[in-house]
């Protein structure tokens, strides 16, 4: 049976997931209020990381490193917020935020895939330009009519614990959750996914097989920009309803770490982002409740130290796509 085969291949992951779920529900049984608020906070922090990591997954699976996610996010937050403030329409804001992500993605795609600019340099350029323009054109005192509203998904929001955590949030958070599964399906079950992985692993073989490597990379990196733009829009219009200079606060770089932690796979990246979010939530809870008398600086190290430990344990098992970082030149 194929299902049994899948189970035995993924027994570590399924087992871990089951353990985590049991643990979470045990916590929920002990104190439902604190459990829900801590997991909600974890997901609240994880949303931009998940979206950012998905941008990385698409890019690196096609062979293009994107370290400009941070800048794409910042521009998305900026463009979305100010478009919404100017038009007083949050819908326009979200669309403009997503489009600005595409524009940044297109810059990365054309400069690295067509122009063969070093991918790291292109990413750094995006980050610097993003900080520059969002600071320069920033105007204070602008407001948007309201942030993106939270809503309850019918039926799903009634599930204990999972409902209030994942299905009572705003539209971008819900989208982030869905896109992980969609992307997993696309990447591993469709022709586009097979070609994308081929182009990222061994582009000359893919080229020989008749795949247009350049076109596919261009499309993927550009389109992935939508997700980065939305991650930014989430920061300025869903998580808050304000723009602050530098508000992406390193989340784009964290997303890259989560991408590696998640072994370049969408669902594992989701798990990694949730893990990181929960560690932050735990640090905050320990600090706020004052139950243990540990300096907060030390508690706040916890997410990073634990991530490092898990990363070290997982190291050696993860492998980057073969052609990541290398420009493709036909006939080389």
């Amino acid at each position: 049976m194929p299902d049994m085969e899948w189970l035995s291949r993924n027994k570590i992951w399924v087992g871990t997931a089951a353990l985590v779920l049991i643990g979470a529900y045990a916590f929920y049984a002990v104190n439902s209020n604190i459990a829900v608020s801590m997991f909600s906070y974890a997901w609240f922090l994880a949303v931009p990381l998940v979206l950012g990591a998905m941008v990385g997954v698409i890019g690196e699976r096609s062979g293009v490193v994107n370290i400009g996610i941070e800048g794409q996010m910042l521009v998305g937050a900026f463009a979305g917020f100010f478009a919404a403030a100017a038009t007083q329409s949050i819908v326009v804001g979200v669309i403009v935020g997503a489009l600005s992500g595409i524009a940044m993605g297109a810059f990365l795609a054309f400069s690295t895939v067509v122009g063969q600019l070093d991918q790291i340099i292109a990413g750094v350029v995006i980050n610097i330009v993003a900080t520059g323009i969002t600071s320069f054109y920033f105007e204070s005192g602008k407001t948007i009519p309201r942030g993106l509203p939270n809503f309850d998904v019918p039926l799903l929001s009634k599930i204990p614990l999972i409902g209030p955590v994942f299905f009572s949030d705003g539209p971008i958070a819900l989208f982030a959750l869905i896109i992980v599964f969609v992307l997993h399906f696309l990447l591993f079950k469709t022709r586009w996914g097979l070609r994308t992985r081929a182009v990222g692993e061994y582009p000359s073989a893919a080229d020989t097989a008749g795949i247009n490597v350049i076109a596919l990379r261009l499309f993927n990196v550009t389109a992935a920009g939508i997700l980065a733009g939305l991650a930014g829009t989430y920061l300025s219009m869903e998580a808050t309803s304000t723009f602050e200079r530098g508000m992406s606060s390193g989340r784009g770089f964290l997303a890259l770490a989560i991408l590696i932690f998640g072994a370049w796979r969408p669902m594992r990246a989701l798990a990694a982002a949730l893990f990181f979010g929960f560690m932050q939530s735990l640090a905050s809870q320990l600090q706020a409740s004052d139950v243990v008398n540990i300096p907060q600086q030390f508690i706040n190290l916890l997410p990073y130290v634990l991530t490092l430990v898990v990363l070290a344990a997982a190291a050696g098992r993860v492998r980057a796509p073969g052609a990541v970082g290398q420009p493709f030149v036909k006939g080389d």
Partner: protein
Amino acid sequence: MKAKPFLIAAPAALALALAGCGGSTGNSTDGSSTAPKDCSSADVFCIGLVTDTGSVDDKSFNQAAWEGVKAMEGDGVQTKYIETKDAKDYAANLKQFTDQKYDAIVTVGFLMTEATQTAAKANPTTKFIGVDQFQEATVENVTGLVFPEANAGYAAGYLAGLLTKTNKIGVVLGQEIPPTQNYAKGYELGSKAANPKISVAKVYHPAGDNAFSDSPWGAGEAKKMLAQGADIIFGAGGGTGNGALGEVAKTSGAGTSLYCIGVDLDQWDTVPEAHPCLVTSAEKKLTDGTTDLLKQVKDGSIKGGNFNGKTGLAAFHDFDSKLPAEVKTKVADVVKGIEDGTIKVG
């Protein structure tokens, strides 16, 4: 593989150009007197302001200090600010003013204490005003404008203690440095004085570059506190705190059962998105203090060391009619008690 150097050079040059724009400097003269005056002349009184990392319109410290500088504008006065983009640039930004022989230089924020003292020692004729910078050792030409944050926090906490129905309140802070620690301490003491059963949840931003501009983090912390039953949130930490205020404002019950309290300035004017919940702000009279000290520089009476600015609570605005008269009287008594010294905080 063919290299295309122009493709590297062009975006890099663009990036540098734009990054240059980012570190913008501004001139307050608004075009009325475009030509910069000669600051070394005795007739011209030049005031320069260097912001802490953040902008001059940050709705917080930098803005309030800059407003204090602008209040000095008039004949023979030149004012100018430089926005610091990176803490590494403090010294370089200060040097721009000292090189042009500015008469008074205002530096904003606790983190600039050391850079200000270093510049002052190198330029003994220039007067420095360090907003929010406690002076451990007196440098003759540096005056630290300090505020007993604990006093402002105490008044805010006292109000929170009277208003809470759940006996749980929270405070979302920026980086853990003495000013935020004092706010938190005063807030806790004040709330316990009003309501001994109260519990206070307190979080500092994990120290880092973005401790005062991470509004999503502040919003998340507020969300978690509210979910755990807190009904009043004090947001004390620039943009990070503002994120917390915004989150309370958009939660159902804002203004009827949930309230938020701003910090440093009257945030009613500066964070409009917090109007639904913003009862008041724990205020440092930063603008007045800056202007007072600049006047002292001008008439030559300024002394090195520390200068205590005033603190208090900002106006209640829309909540003036909603708060019970009894609460308002009690809070006014406490504010008065702190001012005349009958209430000692800490």
